[in-house]
Protein backbone atom coordinates (compact mmCIF):
# COMPACT_ATOMS: atom_id res chain seq x y z
CA UNK A 1 0.00 0.00 0.00
CA UNK A 2 1.37 3.39 -0.99
CA UNK A 3 1.59 5.69 2.02
CA UNK A 4 -0.06 8.95 1.04
CA UNK A 5 0.89 12.05 2.98
CA UNK A 6 -1.79 13.19 5.39
CA UNK A 7 -3.14 16.68 4.83
CA UNK A 8 -6.05 18.61 6.31
CA UNK A 9 -8.15 16.90 3.65
CA UNK A 10 -7.32 13.60 5.33
CA UNK A 11 -9.74 11.85 7.66
CA UNK A 12 -8.27 10.30 10.79
CA UNK A 13 -10.10 7.29 12.14
CA UNK A 14 -9.29 6.21 15.69
CA UNK A 15 -9.96 2.55 16.34
CA UNK A 16 -9.65 -0.37 13.94
CA UNK A 17 -12.65 -2.41 15.00
CA UNK A 18 -15.65 -2.94 12.78
CA UNK A 19 -16.77 0.67 13.24
CA UNK A 20 -13.37 2.17 12.56
CA UNK A 21 -12.70 -0.10 9.58
CA UNK A 22 -16.12 0.72 8.18
CA UNK A 23 -15.70 4.48 8.60
CA UNK A 24 -12.22 4.31 7.04
CA UNK A 25 -13.28 2.14 4.10
CA UNK A 26 -16.50 3.97 3.32
CA UNK A 27 -14.61 7.27 3.28
CA UNK A 28 -11.77 5.84 1.20
CA UNK A 29 -14.15 4.23 -1.27
CA UNK A 30 -15.73 7.66 -1.67
CA UNK A 31 -12.32 8.95 -2.68
CA UNK A 32 -10.97 10.34 0.58
CA UNK A 33 -7.56 9.73 2.12
CA UNK A 34 -7.73 8.08 5.52
CA UNK A 35 -5.32 7.32 8.32
CA UNK A 36 -6.59 4.46 10.49
CA UNK A 37 -5.10 4.22 13.97
CA UNK A 38 -5.39 1.00 15.98
CA UNK A 39 -3.88 0.41 19.41
CA UNK A 40 -3.63 -3.36 19.02
CA UNK A 41 -1.16 -5.09 16.69
CA UNK A 42 -3.98 -6.18 14.37
CA UNK A 43 -7.28 -4.77 13.13
CA UNK A 44 -10.66 -6.33 13.80
CA UNK A 45 -11.43 -5.19 17.31
CA UNK A 46 -13.93 -6.84 19.56
CA UNK A 47 -16.10 -8.34 16.83
CA UNK A 48 -13.15 -10.39 15.63
CA UNK A 49 -13.21 -11.99 19.09
CA UNK A 50 -16.81 -13.12 18.66
CA UNK A 51 -17.61 -16.64 17.53
CA UNK A 52 -20.90 -15.89 15.82
CA UNK A 53 -23.20 -12.94 15.23
CA UNK A 54 -26.85 -12.77 16.16
CA UNK A 55 -29.35 -13.25 14.66
CA UNK A 56 -27.92 -15.00 11.60
CA UNK A 57 -25.38 -17.03 13.55
CA UNK A 58 -22.87 -16.22 10.84
CA UNK A 59 -19.20 -15.70 11.59
CA UNK A 60 -17.80 -12.21 12.19
CA UNK A 61 -14.49 -13.02 10.51
CA UNK A 62 -16.41 -13.58 7.28
CA UNK A 63 -17.22 -9.88 7.14
CA UNK A 64 -13.74 -9.11 8.42
CA UNK A 65 -12.30 -10.98 5.44
CA UNK A 66 -14.28 -8.77 3.07
CA UNK A 67 -13.23 -5.60 4.87
CA UNK A 68 -9.62 -6.71 4.85
CA UNK A 69 -9.79 -7.33 1.13
CA UNK A 70 -11.31 -3.91 0.61
CA UNK A 71 -8.38 -2.56 2.62
CA UNK A 72 -5.76 -4.52 0.67
CA UNK A 73 -7.13 -3.14 -2.58
CA UNK A 74 -7.41 0.45 -1.40
CA UNK A 75 -4.25 2.56 -1.28
CA UNK A 76 -6.18 5.45 0.21
CA UNK A 77 -6.22 3.91 3.67
CA UNK A 78 -3.03 4.07 5.65
CA UNK A 79 -3.07 1.76 8.66
CA UNK A 80 -1.09 2.38 11.84
CA UNK A 81 -1.17 -0.45 14.35
CA UNK A 82 0.12 -0.46 17.94
CA UNK A 83 -0.70 3.22 17.75
CA UNK A 84 -2.62 5.48 20.10
CA UNK A 85 -3.68 9.09 19.79
CA UNK A 86 -2.10 11.17 22.54
CA UNK A 87 -3.12 14.64 21.45
CA UNK A 88 -5.28 16.62 19.07
CA UNK A 89 -4.43 20.26 18.29
CA UNK A 90 -6.29 22.75 16.13
CA UNK A 91 -9.93 22.72 15.13
CA UNK A 92 -12.40 21.52 12.52
CA UNK A 93 -10.77 21.26 9.11
CA UNK A 94 -7.31 21.67 10.51
CA UNK A 95 -6.21 19.22 13.19
CA UNK A 96 -2.73 18.09 14.07
CA UNK A 97 -2.93 14.74 15.78
CA UNK A 98 -0.11 13.27 17.80
CA UNK A 99 0.13 9.50 17.59
CA UNK A 100 2.34 7.31 19.74
CA UNK A 101 3.41 4.13 17.95
CA UNK A 102 4.68 1.27 20.09
CA UNK A 103 7.47 -0.92 18.74
CA UNK A 104 6.39 -4.23 17.18
CA UNK A 105 10.02 -5.38 16.90
CA UNK A 106 9.05 -6.94 13.58
CA UNK A 107 9.32 -5.07 10.29
CA UNK A 108 7.53 -5.40 6.95
CA UNK A 109 9.92 -8.17 5.89
CA UNK A 110 7.90 -10.57 8.03
CA UNK A 111 6.29 -13.32 5.98
CA UNK A 112 4.34 -14.76 8.92
CA UNK A 113 6.23 -18.02 8.42
CA UNK A 114 6.23 -18.60 12.16
CA UNK A 115 9.89 -19.51 12.67
CA UNK A 116 10.32 -16.93 15.44
CA UNK A 117 7.28 -18.29 17.24
CA UNK A 118 8.74 -21.77 17.20
CA UNK A 119 12.11 -20.50 18.43
CA UNK A 120 10.79 -18.50 21.37
CA UNK A 121 10.08 -20.33 24.64
CA UNK A 122 8.39 -17.71 26.83
CA UNK A 123 4.61 -17.91 27.04
CA UNK A 124 2.52 -14.82 27.74
CA UNK A 125 -1.20 -14.24 28.33
CA UNK A 126 -3.24 -14.05 25.16
CA UNK A 127 -5.43 -10.94 25.29
CA UNK A 128 -7.23 -12.02 22.14
CA UNK A 129 -8.63 -14.85 24.26
CA UNK A 130 -9.22 -12.54 27.24
CA UNK A 131 -6.21 -14.17 28.87
CA UNK A 132 -8.05 -17.48 29.18
CA UNK A 133 -5.05 -18.96 27.40
CA UNK A 134 -1.44 -18.14 26.62
CA UNK A 135 0.62 -17.82 23.48
CA UNK A 136 4.30 -17.53 22.58
CA UNK A 137 5.97 -14.19 23.21
CA UNK A 138 6.57 -14.02 19.45
CA UNK A 139 3.12 -14.36 17.97
CA UNK A 140 0.63 -13.64 15.24
CA UNK A 141 -2.19 -11.82 17.09
CA UNK A 142 -4.78 -14.15 15.58
CA UNK A 143 -5.44 -16.32 12.53
CA UNK A 144 -7.09 -13.44 10.66
CA UNK A 145 -4.53 -10.89 11.76
CA UNK A 146 -4.13 -7.89 9.48
CA UNK A 147 -1.41 -6.81 9.02
CA UNK A 148 -0.37 -10.45 8.78
CA UNK A 149 2.81 -9.83 10.69
CA UNK A 150 4.25 -11.24 13.89
CA UNK A 151 4.75 -9.28 17.11
CA UNK A 152 7.31 -9.62 19.86
CA UNK A 153 6.02 -9.17 23.39
CA UNK A 154 8.04 -6.40 25.09
CA UNK A 155 8.50 -8.78 28.03
CA UNK A 156 11.19 -10.72 26.18
CA UNK A 157 13.10 -7.78 24.76
CA UNK A 158 16.63 -7.96 26.06
CA UNK A 159 16.29 -11.62 26.94
CA UNK A 160 17.85 -14.65 25.30
CA UNK A 161 14.41 -15.41 23.87
CA UNK A 162 14.50 -12.23 21.83
CA UNK A 163 17.87 -13.22 20.42
CA UNK A 164 16.50 -16.68 19.64
CA UNK A 165 13.66 -15.08 17.71
CA UNK A 166 16.05 -12.83 15.82
CA UNK A 167 18.32 -15.76 15.00
CA UNK A 168 15.39 -17.85 13.79
CA UNK A 169 14.20 -15.25 11.26
CA UNK A 170 15.79 -15.79 7.87
CA UNK A 171 14.39 -12.58 6.48
CA UNK A 172 15.78 -9.94 8.77
CA UNK A 173 12.27 -9.14 9.85
CA UNK A 174 13.08 -8.88 13.54
CA UNK A 175 14.42 -5.54 14.73
CA UNK A 176 15.08 -5.55 18.45
CA UNK A 177 16.14 -1.91 18.44
CA UNK A 178 12.73 -0.56 17.49
CA UNK A 179 11.69 2.26 19.80
CA UNK A 180 8.35 3.88 20.53
CA UNK A 181 7.95 6.77 18.12
CA UNK A 182 5.69 9.78 18.16
CA UNK A 183 4.34 11.00 14.85
CA UNK A 184 2.17 13.93 13.89
CA UNK A 185 -0.69 13.47 11.46
CA UNK A 186 -2.62 16.28 9.80
CA UNK A 187 -6.33 15.74 9.50
CA UNK A 188 -9.41 17.73 8.61
CA UNK A 189 -11.74 15.55 10.63
CA UNK A 190 -11.51 12.77 13.20
CA UNK A 191 -13.80 9.77 13.57
CA UNK A 192 -13.56 8.41 17.09
CA UNK A 193 -14.43 4.71 16.91
CA UNK A 194 -12.69 3.25 19.93
CA UNK A 195 -15.54 0.88 20.72
CA UNK A 196 -16.39 -0.60 24.08
CA UNK A 197 -15.06 -2.65 26.92
CA UNK A 198 -16.87 -5.27 28.98
CA UNK A 199 -17.86 -3.93 32.38
CA UNK A 200 -15.52 -5.18 35.11
CA UNK A 201 -17.51 -8.19 36.36
CA UNK A 202 -15.52 -8.35 39.60
CA UNK A 203 -17.35 -5.20 40.69
CA UNK A 204 -20.63 -7.14 40.71
CA UNK A 205 -19.79 -8.67 44.08
CA UNK A 206 -22.86 -10.88 44.64
CA UNK A 207 -21.89 -12.88 41.55
CA UNK A 208 -18.37 -13.67 42.78
CA UNK A 209 -16.62 -13.39 39.42
CA UNK A 210 -13.48 -12.71 41.43
CA UNK A 211 -14.06 -15.71 43.72
CA UNK A 212 -15.55 -18.48 41.57
CA UNK A 213 -13.65 -19.93 38.60
CA UNK A 214 -16.84 -21.12 36.94
CA UNK A 215 -18.41 -17.69 36.77
CA UNK A 216 -17.26 -16.13 33.51
CA UNK A 217 -18.31 -13.25 31.28
CA UNK A 218 -20.20 -13.37 27.99
CA UNK A 219 -17.18 -12.19 26.03
CA UNK A 220 -15.07 -14.94 27.55
CA UNK A 221 -17.75 -17.45 26.64
CA UNK A 222 -17.42 -16.40 22.98
CA UNK A 223 -13.80 -17.49 23.11
CA UNK A 224 -14.74 -20.86 24.60
CA UNK A 225 -17.08 -21.54 21.68
CA UNK A 226 -14.61 -20.35 19.06
CA UNK A 227 -12.44 -22.86 17.22
CA UNK A 228 -9.55 -20.38 17.54
CA UNK A 229 -10.18 -20.10 21.29
CA UNK A 230 -8.31 -21.59 24.24
CA UNK A 231 -10.38 -24.78 24.24
CA UNK A 232 -10.43 -25.18 20.46
CA UNK A 233 -14.14 -24.52 20.46
CA UNK A 234 -15.10 -26.98 23.21
CA UNK A 235 -17.29 -25.60 25.98
CA UNK A 236 -15.30 -26.68 29.01
CA UNK A 237 -15.45 -24.91 32.34
CA UNK A 238 -12.33 -23.25 33.73
CA UNK A 239 -12.12 -24.88 37.17
CA UNK A 240 -11.69 -28.49 36.09
CA UNK A 241 -12.05 -28.65 32.30
CA UNK A 242 -15.33 -30.52 32.76
CA UNK A 243 -17.86 -30.25 29.92
CA UNK A 244 -20.19 -27.39 30.81
CA UNK A 245 -23.63 -28.61 29.76
CA UNK A 246 -25.92 -26.88 32.22
CA UNK A 247 -25.24 -23.20 31.76
CA UNK A 248 -26.83 -20.15 33.35
CA UNK A 249 -26.89 -16.80 31.58
CA UNK A 250 -27.38 -13.81 33.85
CA UNK A 251 -28.68 -10.70 32.13
CA UNK A 252 -28.03 -7.10 33.14
CA UNK A 253 -24.72 -8.02 34.75
CA UNK A 254 -23.77 -4.42 35.41
CA UNK A 255 -26.30 -2.83 33.07
CA UNK A 256 -29.53 -1.09 34.12
CA UNK A 257 -28.03 -0.85 37.59
CA UNK A 258 -27.35 2.40 39.41
CA UNK A 259 -24.63 0.67 41.40
CA UNK A 260 -22.85 -0.04 38.10
CA UNK A 261 -23.96 1.10 34.62
CA UNK A 262 -27.07 3.29 34.44
CA UNK A 263 -27.79 2.45 30.81
CA UNK A 264 -29.05 -0.67 29.10
CA UNK A 265 -26.28 -2.15 26.96
CA UNK A 266 -28.75 -3.34 24.32
CA UNK A 267 -26.75 -6.29 22.99
CA UNK A 268 -26.61 -8.55 26.05
CA UNK A 269 -30.05 -10.15 25.72
CA UNK A 270 -29.44 -11.07 22.10
CA UNK A 271 -25.91 -12.21 22.91
CA UNK A 272 -27.19 -14.63 25.54
CA UNK A 273 -29.97 -15.89 23.27
CA UNK A 274 -27.27 -16.49 20.67
CA UNK A 275 -25.03 -18.23 23.17
CA UNK A 276 -27.74 -20.72 24.08
CA UNK A 277 -27.24 -21.87 20.50
CA UNK A 278 -23.56 -22.57 21.26
CA UNK A 279 -24.66 -24.83 24.10
CA UNK A 280 -27.11 -26.68 21.88
CA UNK A 281 -24.48 -26.92 19.14
CA UNK A 282 -21.89 -28.37 21.52
CA UNK A 283 -24.26 -30.71 23.42
CA UNK A 284 -27.27 -31.49 21.23
CA UNK A 285 -28.31 -34.33 23.53
CA UNK A 286 -28.16 -32.86 27.01
CA UNK A 287 -27.15 -29.22 26.74
CA UNK A 288 -29.27 -26.99 28.95
CA UNK A 289 -29.45 -23.20 29.13
CA UNK A 290 -31.19 -21.03 31.69
CA UNK A 291 -31.60 -17.31 31.09
CA UNK A 292 -32.23 -15.15 34.16
CA UNK A 293 -33.61 -11.81 32.95
CA UNK A 294 -35.57 -8.68 33.85
CA UNK A 295 -36.85 -7.80 30.39
CA UNK A 296 -35.77 -9.63 27.23
CA UNK A 297 -34.80 -6.89 24.84
CA UNK A 298 -34.97 -8.62 21.48
CA UNK A 299 -35.67 -5.41 19.62
CA UNK A 300 -37.26 -5.17 16.14
CA UNK A 301 -36.61 -8.10 13.78
CA UNK A 302 -34.55 -9.82 16.48
CA UNK A 303 -37.86 -10.79 18.09
CA UNK A 304 -38.07 -13.71 15.64
CA UNK A 305 -34.79 -15.02 16.99
CA UNK A 306 -36.12 -14.72 20.54
CA UNK A 307 -39.25 -16.64 19.59
CA UNK A 308 -37.13 -19.40 18.05
CA UNK A 309 -35.08 -19.73 21.22
CA UNK A 310 -38.23 -19.65 23.37
CA UNK A 311 -39.54 -22.61 21.39
CA UNK A 312 -36.38 -24.56 22.20
CA UNK A 313 -37.04 -27.02 25.06
CA UNK A 314 -33.38 -26.92 26.11
CA UNK A 315 -33.67 -23.24 27.03
CA UNK A 316 -35.39 -22.09 30.19
CA UNK A 317 -36.34 -18.46 30.89
CA UNK A 318 -36.64 -17.18 34.45
CA UNK A 319 -37.76 -13.60 35.06
CA UNK A 320 -35.46 -12.77 37.89
CA UNK A 321 -32.37 -10.79 38.71
CA UNK A 322 -30.23 -13.39 40.43
CA UNK A 323 -29.60 -12.23 44.01
CA UNK A 324 -26.31 -13.98 44.59
CA UNK A 325 -24.12 -16.85 43.49
CA UNK A 326 -22.46 -19.32 45.82
CA UNK A 327 -20.31 -22.34 45.04
CA UNK A 328 -21.16 -25.89 46.08
CA UNK A 329 -18.73 -28.64 47.04
CA UNK A 330 -18.42 -29.78 43.39
CA UNK A 331 -17.35 -26.33 42.27
CA UNK A 332 -20.74 -25.71 40.72
CA UNK A 333 -21.91 -22.11 40.85
CA UNK A 334 -25.33 -21.97 42.53
CA UNK A 335 -27.80 -19.23 41.62
CA UNK A 336 -30.07 -17.94 44.39
CA UNK A 337 -33.11 -15.84 43.75
CA UNK A 338 -36.81 -15.58 43.19
CA UNK A 339 -38.73 -16.07 39.97
CA UNK A 340 -40.85 -12.94 40.04
CA UNK A 341 -43.56 -14.49 37.93
CA UNK A 342 -45.36 -16.33 40.69
CA UNK A 343 -42.63 -15.96 43.33
CA UNK A 344 -40.92 -19.32 43.10
CA UNK A 345 -37.74 -19.31 45.13
CA UNK A 346 -34.83 -21.10 43.51
CA UNK A 347 -31.39 -22.34 44.53
CA UNK A 348 -30.07 -23.84 41.34
CA UNK A 349 -26.63 -25.29 40.67
CA UNK A 350 -25.16 -24.94 37.17
CA UNK A 351 -21.96 -26.20 35.56
CA UNK A 352 -21.09 -22.71 34.47
CA UNK A 353 -22.49 -19.22 34.90
CA UNK A 354 -22.10 -16.70 32.09
CA UNK A 355 -22.53 -13.07 33.09
CA UNK A 356 -23.97 -11.00 30.24
CA UNK A 357 -21.70 -8.09 31.10
CA UNK A 358 -22.62 -4.58 30.11
CA UNK A 359 -21.02 -2.33 27.58
CA UNK A 360 -18.80 0.47 28.77
CA UNK A 361 -17.55 2.93 26.19
CA UNK A 362 -13.80 2.64 25.77
CA UNK A 363 -13.66 6.42 25.88
CA UNK A 364 -14.83 6.31 29.49
CA UNK A 365 -11.92 7.28 31.64
CA UNK A 366 -9.85 7.87 28.53
CA UNK A 367 -9.43 11.59 28.26
CA UNK A 368 -10.06 12.31 24.60
CA UNK A 369 -7.71 15.14 23.75
CA UNK A 370 -9.70 18.35 23.38
CA UNK A 371 -12.51 17.37 25.79
CA UNK A 372 -15.53 15.82 24.07
CA UNK A 373 -19.17 16.07 25.08
CA UNK A 374 -20.29 12.70 26.43
CA UNK A 375 -23.42 11.42 28.18
CA UNK A 376 -23.60 10.25 31.79
CA UNK A 377 -22.33 6.83 30.75
CA UNK A 378 -19.38 8.24 28.85
CA UNK A 379 -20.69 7.71 25.32
CA UNK A 380 -19.77 10.49 22.91
CA UNK A 381 -22.82 12.61 22.13
CA UNK A 382 -23.46 14.35 18.83
CA UNK A 383 -22.68 17.94 19.76
CA UNK A 384 -21.45 20.93 17.80
CA UNK A 385 -18.97 21.57 20.60
CA UNK A 386 -17.10 18.48 19.41
CA UNK A 387 -16.04 20.30 16.26
CA UNK A 388 -15.02 17.83 13.60
CA UNK A 389 -14.47 14.97 16.04
CA UNK A 390 -17.30 12.51 15.47
CA UNK A 391 -18.16 9.55 17.65
CA UNK A 392 -18.90 6.33 15.79
CA UNK A 393 -20.09 2.88 16.78
CA UNK A 394 -19.98 1.88 20.43
CA UNK A 395 -17.91 4.89 21.38
CA UNK A 396 -21.11 6.85 20.74
CA UNK A 397 -23.79 4.51 22.04
CA UNK A 398 -24.52 0.95 23.17
CA UNK A 399 -25.03 -0.62 19.75
CA UNK A 400 -25.12 -4.00 18.06
CA UNK A 401 -22.84 -4.56 15.07
CA UNK A 402 -25.46 -3.66 12.49
CA UNK A 403 -26.19 -0.32 14.15
CA UNK A 404 -22.51 0.31 14.82
CA UNK A 405 -21.83 0.02 11.10
CA UNK A 406 -24.67 2.43 10.31
CA UNK A 407 -23.29 4.84 12.86
CA UNK A 408 -19.77 4.53 11.44
CA UNK A 409 -21.02 5.10 7.90
CA UNK A 410 -22.88 8.20 9.05
CA UNK A 411 -19.78 9.44 10.89
CA UNK A 412 -17.75 8.94 7.73
CA UNK A 413 -20.10 11.25 5.84
CA UNK A 414 -19.89 13.92 8.54
CA UNK A 415 -16.11 13.74 8.26
CA UNK A 416 -16.29 13.92 4.46
CA UNK A 417 -18.46 17.03 4.69
CA UNK A 418 -15.69 18.73 6.65
CA UNK A 419 -12.82 17.78 4.34
CA UNK A 420 -14.90 18.64 1.27
CA UNK A 421 -15.36 22.14 2.70
CA UNK A 422 -11.61 22.33 3.20
CA UNK A 423 -11.02 21.17 -0.36
CA UNK A 424 -13.49 23.76 -1.70
CA UNK A 425 -11.85 26.50 0.29
CA UNK A 426 -8.44 25.53 -1.03
CA UNK A 427 -9.58 25.10 -4.61
Amino acid at each position, binding site marked *: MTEHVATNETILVVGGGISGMTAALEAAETGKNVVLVEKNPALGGRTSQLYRYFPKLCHPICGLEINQRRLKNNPRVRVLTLAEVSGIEGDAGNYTVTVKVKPRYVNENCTACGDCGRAVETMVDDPFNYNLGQHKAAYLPNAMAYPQRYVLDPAIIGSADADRAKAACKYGAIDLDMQEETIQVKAGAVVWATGWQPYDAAKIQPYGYDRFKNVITSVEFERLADIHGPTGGKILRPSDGKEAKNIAFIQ*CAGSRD*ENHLRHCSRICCMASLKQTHYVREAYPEDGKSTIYYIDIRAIDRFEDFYQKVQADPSVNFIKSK*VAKITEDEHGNPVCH*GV*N*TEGYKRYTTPHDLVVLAVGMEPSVKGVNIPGHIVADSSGFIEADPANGAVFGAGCASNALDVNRAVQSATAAALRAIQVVNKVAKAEA
Partner: protein
Amino acid sequence: MSANTAVAAKYRNNFLKEIEEQVEMGDWVKMCMQCGVCSGSCPTNFQGAWEHPPQELFMMIRAGKREEVLTTSSMWNCTSCYNCIVRCPRKLPITHIMHGIAEYAHRLGMAPKLQPTRFFSGLFWKNATKTGRVNELKLSMGLYFKDGFVQGIKNGMAMQAVALGLVKAKRLNVMELFGGHKCKDQKGIQAMLKKAYEIERSRKTARIAG
Protein backbone atom coordinates in the same frame (compact mmCIF):
# COMPACT_ATOMS: atom_id res chain seq x y z
CA MET B 1 -71.87 -2.15 42.37
CA SER B 2 -69.55 -2.78 45.30
CA ALA B 3 -67.77 -5.45 43.29
CA ASN B 4 -67.51 -2.96 40.48
CA THR B 5 -65.98 -0.30 42.69
CA ALA B 6 -63.63 -2.89 44.09
CA VAL B 7 -62.36 -3.49 40.59
CA ALA B 8 -62.39 0.22 39.93
CA ALA B 9 -60.24 0.88 43.00
CA LYS B 10 -57.77 -1.69 41.82
CA TYR B 11 -54.91 -0.57 39.62
CA ARG B 12 -55.79 3.00 40.45
CA ASN B 13 -52.95 4.98 41.95
CA ASN B 14 -54.89 5.99 45.11
CA PHE B 15 -53.15 3.56 47.42
CA LEU B 16 -49.76 4.31 45.87
CA LYS B 17 -50.39 7.98 46.61
CA GLU B 18 -51.51 7.14 50.17
CA ILE B 19 -48.26 5.21 50.72
CA GLU B 20 -46.21 8.07 49.32
CA GLU B 21 -47.85 10.49 51.74
CA GLN B 22 -47.96 8.34 54.86
CA VAL B 23 -44.98 5.99 54.74
CA GLU B 24 -41.35 6.79 55.42
CA MET B 25 -39.56 6.49 52.03
CA GLY B 26 -42.94 5.58 50.52
CA ASP B 27 -42.30 7.76 47.48
CA TRP B 28 -39.67 5.23 46.36
CA VAL B 29 -42.23 2.48 45.77
CA LYS B 30 -42.97 3.67 42.23
CA MET B 31 -39.30 3.33 41.26
CA CYS B 32 -39.21 -0.46 41.52
CA MET B 33 -38.61 -2.22 38.20
CA GLN B 34 -39.65 -5.65 39.41
CA CYS B 35 -36.28 -7.37 39.04
CA GLY B 36 -36.77 -9.41 42.21
CA VAL B 37 -33.28 -9.06 43.62
CA CYS B 38 -34.70 -7.95 47.00
CA SER B 39 -36.96 -10.97 47.31
CA GLY B 40 -34.04 -13.19 46.43
CA SER B 41 -31.70 -11.47 48.86
CA CYS B 42 -33.97 -11.53 51.90
CA PRO B 43 -32.88 -14.21 54.37
CA THR B 44 -36.22 -14.74 56.03
CA ASN B 45 -38.09 -14.64 52.74
CA PHE B 46 -35.75 -17.32 51.59
CA GLN B 47 -36.90 -19.42 54.50
CA GLY B 48 -40.34 -18.99 53.00
CA ALA B 49 -41.48 -16.74 55.80
CA TRP B 50 -42.80 -13.92 53.64
CA GLU B 51 -46.30 -14.15 52.27
CA HIS B 52 -45.48 -11.24 49.97
CA PRO B 53 -41.78 -10.37 49.51
CA PRO B 54 -40.77 -6.71 49.08
CA GLN B 55 -41.03 -6.48 45.30
CA GLU B 56 -44.44 -8.12 45.29
CA LEU B 57 -45.60 -5.67 47.96
CA PHE B 58 -44.51 -2.81 45.69
CA MET B 59 -46.51 -4.27 42.83
CA MET B 60 -49.52 -4.84 45.11
CA ILE B 61 -49.36 -1.22 46.21
CA ARG B 62 -49.42 -0.11 42.56
CA ALA B 63 -52.28 -2.52 41.99
CA GLY B 64 -54.22 -0.88 44.83
CA LYS B 65 -54.36 -3.98 47.05
CA ARG B 66 -54.62 -1.89 50.24
CA GLU B 67 -56.23 -4.46 52.51
CA GLU B 68 -53.80 -7.26 51.60
CA VAL B 69 -50.74 -5.08 52.00
CA LEU B 70 -51.58 -3.52 55.33
CA THR B 71 -52.78 -6.71 56.97
CA THR B 72 -49.98 -9.01 55.85
CA SER B 73 -47.36 -10.13 58.35
CA SER B 74 -44.71 -10.01 55.65
CA MET B 75 -42.79 -6.84 56.43
CA TRP B 76 -42.61 -7.88 60.07
CA ASN B 77 -40.15 -10.57 58.99
CA CYS B 78 -37.54 -7.97 58.12
CA THR B 79 -34.33 -8.53 60.10
CA SER B 80 -32.81 -5.22 58.92
CA CYS B 81 -29.94 -7.05 57.27
CA TYR B 82 -29.81 -4.45 54.45
CA ASN B 83 -29.03 -7.04 51.76
CA CYS B 84 -31.89 -5.75 49.62
CA ILE B 85 -30.74 -2.15 49.91
CA VAL B 86 -27.19 -2.73 48.74
CA ARG B 87 -28.24 -4.96 45.83
CA CYS B 88 -31.22 -3.03 44.49
CA PRO B 89 -30.33 -1.77 41.00
CA ARG B 90 -32.66 1.15 41.53
CA LYS B 91 -31.23 2.00 44.97
CA LEU B 92 -34.59 1.73 46.71
CA PRO B 93 -34.19 1.96 50.52
CA ILE B 94 -36.17 -1.25 50.82
CA THR B 95 -35.41 -2.01 54.47
CA HIS B 96 -36.76 1.39 55.48
CA ILE B 97 -39.78 1.06 53.20
CA MET B 98 -40.59 -2.27 54.87
CA HIS B 99 -40.28 -0.68 58.30
CA GLY B 100 -42.32 2.24 57.06
CA ILE B 101 -45.19 0.14 55.75
CA ALA B 102 -45.14 -1.91 58.95
CA GLU B 103 -45.25 1.24 61.05
CA TYR B 104 -48.15 2.56 58.99
CA ALA B 105 -50.07 -0.69 59.27
CA HIS B 106 -49.40 -0.61 63.00
CA ARG B 107 -50.50 3.02 63.22
CA LEU B 108 -53.76 2.17 61.44
CA GLY B 109 -54.18 -0.84 63.69
CA MET B 110 -54.39 -3.08 60.64
CA ALA B 111 -51.22 -5.05 61.31
CA PRO B 112 -51.82 -8.63 62.50
CA LYS B 113 -52.54 -8.46 66.23
CA LEU B 114 -50.52 -11.48 67.27
CA GLN B 115 -47.50 -10.81 65.11
CA PRO B 116 -44.71 -11.37 67.66
CA THR B 117 -42.22 -9.02 66.04
CA ARG B 118 -44.82 -6.29 65.90
CA PHE B 119 -45.31 -6.77 69.62
CA PHE B 120 -41.60 -6.90 70.37
CA SER B 121 -40.90 -3.85 68.23
CA GLY B 122 -43.37 -1.79 70.20
CA LEU B 123 -42.12 -3.23 73.44
CA PHE B 124 -38.55 -2.38 72.56
CA TRP B 125 -39.32 1.21 71.69
CA LYS B 126 -41.30 1.77 74.91
CA ASN B 127 -38.57 0.09 76.91
CA ALA B 128 -35.82 2.16 75.29
CA THR B 129 -37.58 5.50 75.41
CA LYS B 130 -39.00 5.12 78.92
CA THR B 131 -35.64 5.73 80.56
CA GLY B 132 -33.61 6.57 77.48
CA ARG B 133 -31.81 3.25 77.66
CA VAL B 134 -32.78 -0.36 77.04
CA ASN B 135 -33.41 -2.57 80.03
CA GLU B 136 -32.70 -5.99 78.58
CA LEU B 137 -34.19 -7.99 81.43
CA LYS B 138 -37.50 -6.12 81.46
CA LEU B 139 -37.50 -6.33 77.70
CA SER B 140 -37.21 -10.11 77.70
CA MET B 141 -39.68 -10.53 80.55
CA GLY B 142 -42.13 -8.28 78.76
CA LEU B 143 -41.82 -10.47 75.71
CA TYR B 144 -42.28 -13.73 77.59
CA PHE B 145 -45.31 -12.49 79.44
CA LYS B 146 -47.03 -11.01 76.40
CA ASP B 147 -49.42 -13.95 76.31
CA GLY B 148 -50.20 -13.81 79.98
CA PHE B 149 -48.61 -15.05 83.19
CA VAL B 150 -48.71 -18.80 82.62
CA GLN B 151 -47.33 -18.59 79.11
CA GLY B 152 -44.73 -16.18 80.46
CA ILE B 153 -43.50 -18.73 82.97
CA LYS B 154 -43.41 -21.34 80.20
CA ASN B 155 -41.42 -19.06 77.93
CA GLY B 156 -39.20 -18.15 80.83
CA MET B 157 -38.51 -21.83 81.54
CA ALA B 158 -37.75 -22.40 77.89
CA MET B 159 -35.24 -19.59 78.00
CA GLN B 160 -33.93 -20.49 81.43
CA ALA B 161 -30.72 -22.08 80.18
CA VAL B 162 -29.96 -19.09 78.02
CA ALA B 163 -30.71 -16.65 80.79
CA LEU B 164 -28.67 -18.56 83.33
CA GLY B 165 -25.74 -18.66 80.96
CA LEU B 166 -25.90 -14.92 80.61
CA VAL B 167 -26.28 -14.36 84.32
CA LYS B 168 -23.23 -16.56 85.00
CA ALA B 169 -21.32 -14.58 82.39
CA LYS B 170 -22.44 -11.40 84.15
CA ARG B 171 -24.22 -10.31 81.00
CA LEU B 172 -27.67 -10.37 82.54
CA ASN B 173 -28.33 -8.70 85.87
CA VAL B 174 -31.41 -9.72 87.87
CA MET B 175 -31.19 -6.43 89.73
CA GLU B 176 -32.19 -4.76 86.47
CA LEU B 177 -35.79 -5.59 87.34
CA PHE B 178 -35.49 -2.93 89.97
CA GLY B 179 -34.35 0.34 88.43
CA GLY B 180 -31.42 -0.50 86.19
CA HIS B 181 -29.73 1.67 83.63
CA LYS B 182 -31.34 4.93 82.75
CA CYS B 183 -30.60 8.42 81.41
CA LYS B 184 -30.46 11.32 83.82
CA ASP B 185 -32.52 13.72 81.75
CA GLN B 186 -35.50 11.46 81.18
CA LYS B 187 -37.85 14.43 81.33
CA GLY B 188 -36.00 16.13 78.50
CA ILE B 189 -36.09 12.99 76.43
CA GLN B 190 -39.82 12.55 76.91
CA ALA B 191 -40.54 16.17 76.02
CA MET B 192 -38.28 15.97 73.02
CA LEU B 193 -39.98 12.84 71.70
CA LYS B 194 -43.43 14.22 72.36
CA LYS B 195 -42.55 17.21 70.24
CA ALA B 196 -41.11 15.03 67.52
CA TYR B 197 -44.35 13.05 67.29
CA GLU B 198 -46.35 16.25 67.09
CA ILE B 199 -44.27 17.63 64.26
CA GLU B 200 -44.36 14.36 62.34
CA ARG B 201 -48.13 14.12 62.63
CA SER B 202 -48.65 17.70 61.45
CA ARG B 203 -46.31 17.12 58.49
CA LYS B 204 -48.24 14.05 57.36
CA THR B 205 -51.63 15.76 57.56
CA ALA B 206 -50.10 18.67 55.65
CA ARG B 207 -48.95 16.28 52.92
CA ILE B 208 -52.43 14.82 52.53
CA ALA B 209 -53.90 18.31 52.34
CA GLY B 210 -51.32 19.57 49.83
